[in-house]
């Protein structure tokens, strides 16, 4: 993976050191140009109008859907439902499918916790070292008809042993919903090989535009689900009193869609596939390993990961982020990272988080180390 060559596709990088990809990734010029192309050359309705601009939109959206299908190894494009983000995808399933009992981990983003809290919901605790407790899971899983787990946690970059989890779940007739918002941009996921039932991810974390996301599910499950939002394009006919629901994927894509975003997302998937997903994770792990952690308290999982979550004793996390931003334009996140439940349960103060991606370099880690060193000296 040629980081220097990749960085040329991101002119925004001259504004500073961006270490907040876990919140939002930067966008390469290829994706931005594709979005601009929609607005400049064919800003029209898709799926409705049969004039040349409308047909062009249909063609590009179909191509984008196909790119996503290839990106995640799905069987058919109609299993790819475009949403606003992973949050909407998860809520769509939570509100469209009847589950009796749902299990989540103890480190879920609010987006994969809150939709389930009103259902019959339980949480499985991690081990002392913040890794997944496979033995405990094996005992509990038979009581649940759905497990909805975060694949890679935005909290600390820990990745669950998903192959084993899916195997155990399916042996117990339990469906698996994977929140892949933090994993899809960083590693290859093949939904067919893993036999995933539901998968959700956001476009904005994988170089795609904001306002885009994907729900993937097995076709029989999508056919079982009733549309959560109904409107234009979700029906092929209606009267004053009834309507006839469209086939997949239109059934779940109500109203005019974010065509520019969808087309941009397709381009982002194409861009990542061209780079090759195998090297991305290794690159991030190498960068995190290079951080000087002396005098810094690590938060969460401490093994190989692409996210560095930390606290500097006697210093507020927001202050760390503010100082790094003012001193050397280093952009990190601070707070509870939308995983309030984990912080509250473990009684941990809000922390600072640096997350890495394809455009970050060892030089940037060196500068981060220097600034953290200055901050540590200032506090001690």
């Amino acid at each position, binding site marked *: 993976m040629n980081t220097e060559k990749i960085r040329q596709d991101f002119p925004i990088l001259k504004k500073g050191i961006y270490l907040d990809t876990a919140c939002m990734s930067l966008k390469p010029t290829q994706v931005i140009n594709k979005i601009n192309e929609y607005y400049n050359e064919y800003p029209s309705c898709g799926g409705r109008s049969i004039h040349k601009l409308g047909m062009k939109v249909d063609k590009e959206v179909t191509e984008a859907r196909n790119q996503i299908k290839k990106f995640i190894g799905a069987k058919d494009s109609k299993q790819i439902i475009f949403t606003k983000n992973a949050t909407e995808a998860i809520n769509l399933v939570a509100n469209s499918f009847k589950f009796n009992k749902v299990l989540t981990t103890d480190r879920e983003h609010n987006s994969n916790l809150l939709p389930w809290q009103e259902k019959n919901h339980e949480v499985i605790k991690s081990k002392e070292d913040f890794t997944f407790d496979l033995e405990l899971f094996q005992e509990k899983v038979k009581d649940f008809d759905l497990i909805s787990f975060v694949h890679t946690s935005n909290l600390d970059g820990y990745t669950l042993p998903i192959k084993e989890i899916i195997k155990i779940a399916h042996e117990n007739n339990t469906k698996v919903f994977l929140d892949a918002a933090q994993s899809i941009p960083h590693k290859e996921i093949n939904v067919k090989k893993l036999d995933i039932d539901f998968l959700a991810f956001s476009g904005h974390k994988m170089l795609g535009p904001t306002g885009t996301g994907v729900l993937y599910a097995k076709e029989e499950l999508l056919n079982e689900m009733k549309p959560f939002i109904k409107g234009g394009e979700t029906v092929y006919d209606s009267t004053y009193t009834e309507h006839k629901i469209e086939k997949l994927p239109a059934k779940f894509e109500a109203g005019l869609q974010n065509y520019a975003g969808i087309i941009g997302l397709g381009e982002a998937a194409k861009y990542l596939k061209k780079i090759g997903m195998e090297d991305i994770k290794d690159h991030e792990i190498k960068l995190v390993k290079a951080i000087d952690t002396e005098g810094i308290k690590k938060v969460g999982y401490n093994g190989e990961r692409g996210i560095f979550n930390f606290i500097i004793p006697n210093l*507020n996390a*927001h*202050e*760390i*982020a*503010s*100082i*790094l*931003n*003012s*001193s*050397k334009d280093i952009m990190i996140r601070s707070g509870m990272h939308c995983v309030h439940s984990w912080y509250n349960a473990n009684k941990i103060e809000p922390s600072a988080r640096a997350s890495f991606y394809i455009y970050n370099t060892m030089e940037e880690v060196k500068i981060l180390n220097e*600034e953290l060193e*200055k*901050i540590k*000296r*200032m*506090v001690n």
Partner: protein
Amino acid sequence: MICLLTFIVFGVLGIFSASHRELAKEAFQCVFRRTTFRKCDSGTDIKVKGKIVGTLMKKSPKSAKIVHNHFEFISWIFTILFLVSLVYSGFSAYNLIVHDNCVGPDADPEQCIFTPSETVVDCGDPLCDDEGHCQECGDDCDCNDCE
């Protein structure tokens, strides 16, 4: 107590800009909590402190350390200075409107560099002639005899 300064600054800017109004609201929440002896929870004080310390760290890590360690004390000093200068500015503005000078009804016009209705030449010693009159005065001049 930096929130008070932040509130006033953003409050004034907020007259012209919606985004600054939101910042002013945050700063006000902070001021309200601090004046009721509670910790600020809007984060305004931390963001401002971080910005100042971070900017200083670029030029002088030693100064950044001093400011960081004594930030509360320093911000109280600046807040008091600001309030005192605000009070004095208020008096001056009142005098200007009511008495046409910034000092008050018994003011020596020469004490005031600027009065809107008159232009007074500052007659310092070097500008007095042998007879004790201001050398710089012309027909429009209204300066008194030099001491």
